[in-house]
């Protein structure tokens, strides 16, 4: 008998006879009923405000711009403020590629010691101050992990209230190969439980909120 058959026969021997999958699905759905009773309330009056409260508490910095075409300017401002050269690894998303980057040099290859990467978030989650990225032809996952500074462009229109709302957005679509909820800069508490910001991933996460 294969290991698979052995495991299934052991599991089946201990559980009652096969049940109707529709009935199991009904029970599983009931376990998601009344979500507000089992999740935290939002921290602010609007989604963007709640997001900002949670994200800044974790060390994420936030800038707000009225429209996408103000993003290169905001990126230049951030880089200058951090004392960095105006040069970034840029996500392949057409929304970002199509912008006029002016004095900021952009490239798509990501160096192992890249200083700053600029990417587009699919969603924001107000409950936790998280941003969501999906892998794809335009979006290398390493763009969010190799650079020391991760600059994320997030449209207020893509802001969701709760984690379940993100799960709902995936329904009926082909989920990406790799979806990541990023909540603050990388960090660790592995030495004596004391928090150190900046571990293997970025030490700085900067969100540019686009209001339009």
């Amino acid at each position, binding site marked *: 008998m294969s*290991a*698979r058959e052995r*495991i*299934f026969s*052991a*599991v089946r021997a*201990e*559980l009652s006879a*096969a*049940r109707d*999958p529709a009935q*199991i*699905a009904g*029970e*599983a759905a009931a*376990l*998601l009923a009344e979500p507000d009773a*089992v*999740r*935290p309330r939002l921290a602010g009056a609007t989604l963007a405000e709640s997001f900002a409260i949670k994200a800044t508490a*974790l060390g994420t910095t936030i800038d707000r711009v009225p429209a996408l075409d103000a993003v290169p300017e905001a990126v230049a401002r951030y880089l200058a403020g951090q004392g960095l050269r105006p040069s970034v690894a840029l996500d392949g998303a057409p929304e970002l590629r199509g912008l006029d980057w002016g004095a900021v040099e952009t490239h798509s290859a990501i160096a*192992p010691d890249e200083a700053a990467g600029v990417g587009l978030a699919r969603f924001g989650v107000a409950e936790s*101050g*998280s941003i969501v990225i999906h*892998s*794809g*032809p*335009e979006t290398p*996952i*390493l763009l*969010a*992990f190799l650079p020391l500074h991760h600059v994320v462009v997030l449209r207020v229109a893509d802001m969701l209230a709760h*984690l379940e709302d*993100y*799960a*709902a957005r*995936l329904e009926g679509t082909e*989920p990406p*190969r*790799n*979806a*990541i*909820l*990023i*909540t*603050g*800069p*990388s*960090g*660790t*508490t*592995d*030495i*004596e*439980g*004391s928090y150190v910001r*900046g*571990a*293997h*991933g970025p030490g700085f996460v900067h969100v540019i909120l686009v209001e339009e």
Partner: protein
Amino acid sequence: MSDAPHAEAEAPDFKTRAGIALADRTLKIAIDRTTNTAETKRAAAVGAFPEFEAARERGRAIKDHVIANLGHYLETFERNATASGAKVHWAADDAEARAIVVRLCREAGARSVTRSKSMLGEEIGLPDALAEAGIERVETDLAEHIIQLAGEHPSHIIWPAMHRTREQVADLFREGHVPPPSAEDPGSMVRSARRVLREKFLGADVGISGANFLIADTGATCTVTNEGNAELTTTPPRVHIVTAGIEKLVPSTAHAFALLRLLVRSATGGEMTQYTTFHRGPKRPGDADGPEEMHIVLVDNGRSRMLGDEFRDMLRCIRCGACMNHCVVYRQIGGHAYGGTYPGPMGAVLTPVLDGLAKSRDLPFACTMNGRCAEVCPVRIPLPTLLRAWRGRSWRENLEPRAMRAGLGLWAWVARRPRLYRLASGLGVRALRLMGKGGWVGSVPLAGGWTAYRDLPRPSGKTFMEQYRGGRK
């Protein structure tokens, strides 16, 4: 010496290991530094989440639902993971799991493997199996990196290097890092590890990770981490291998989120880990990066047996570590003294399942039954009840040491004779009073195991029954 593996991990039996650990003052300092922070932060996180009790109840119900329908969810997950292009492998025990992972590494021609922390990997003995196969293993989680430098095993399921103080970590890094870190503060040590591991990430042939959840309806695996090492482990290598226990299933992504809220608050006192990652199959046509192959090894190793016995509730465990952070015994002796992969209250329940009760019979007894573990467990596992069940089994299977069986037998014989019992307890109380000084008794013949590290309160001189009768008159 700071870089010698902790001695208590090497001793053959629990009593010796616990004795060595209790005598190690530095160990106590290290454990206190982390567990005190963990306890405070968890309390604050739970306090800031008024819905916590309701969420806990929901979490318990989700896990119970999955366990009751495990066959269905295993099949669903396998079907969906396979459809995503991942290859699913099944391992009935640890030896099969090791063999599968080593074979996959060989097929990939792997010389170097990066690993992101997974307790299941420890449970199945993966580190040693890779070493035996001659494959370089690079631990990328900071704590795992520390214990790899020290040649040790994890002493905690969330903070594997909890048993080391920052001074001891600094010593290890000074010897193991080129160039050594510039200072002893945790920040510069973390930066040093980042520098040392960066090139290892990009040069590995295979990346191995675990999973916190297996999502049945999408076939995705979900991992939560803080350091960013997990994505650097799973993205650049050509092959990504996930090892996961079969109890990790959840029906859907939304169910995973419900449990995630409990897991993170209970583990570190945060609300979300920095990275919550869902992996679903290998690199797709046109993808900018990602592995060419994804393999998922589903491991039983005693879990299906637990479905049918009194330890079934333990399958709900989401490995948050809260029970050990709040355990008075763990906080005295640390994780290595337990001798298994999993320490603390949850380890005392699981180790007899994994290693057999004969080898781990002492663990269910290393418990004061104060109930704090069950109070904090986010999925309401009745840990003291399960430990009591092991004690009962140990008695039935005749595993008690002879002296204990004889002693308890004698006690039972006397206790069934009220006059004799009153006489014996009256004599005992007076004898203890004679042995004590001030309010405490520092040493009792035959009870050195108790009195070596703590004193007994000196009794008043009369038994309860004598005082009770005296008071009534």
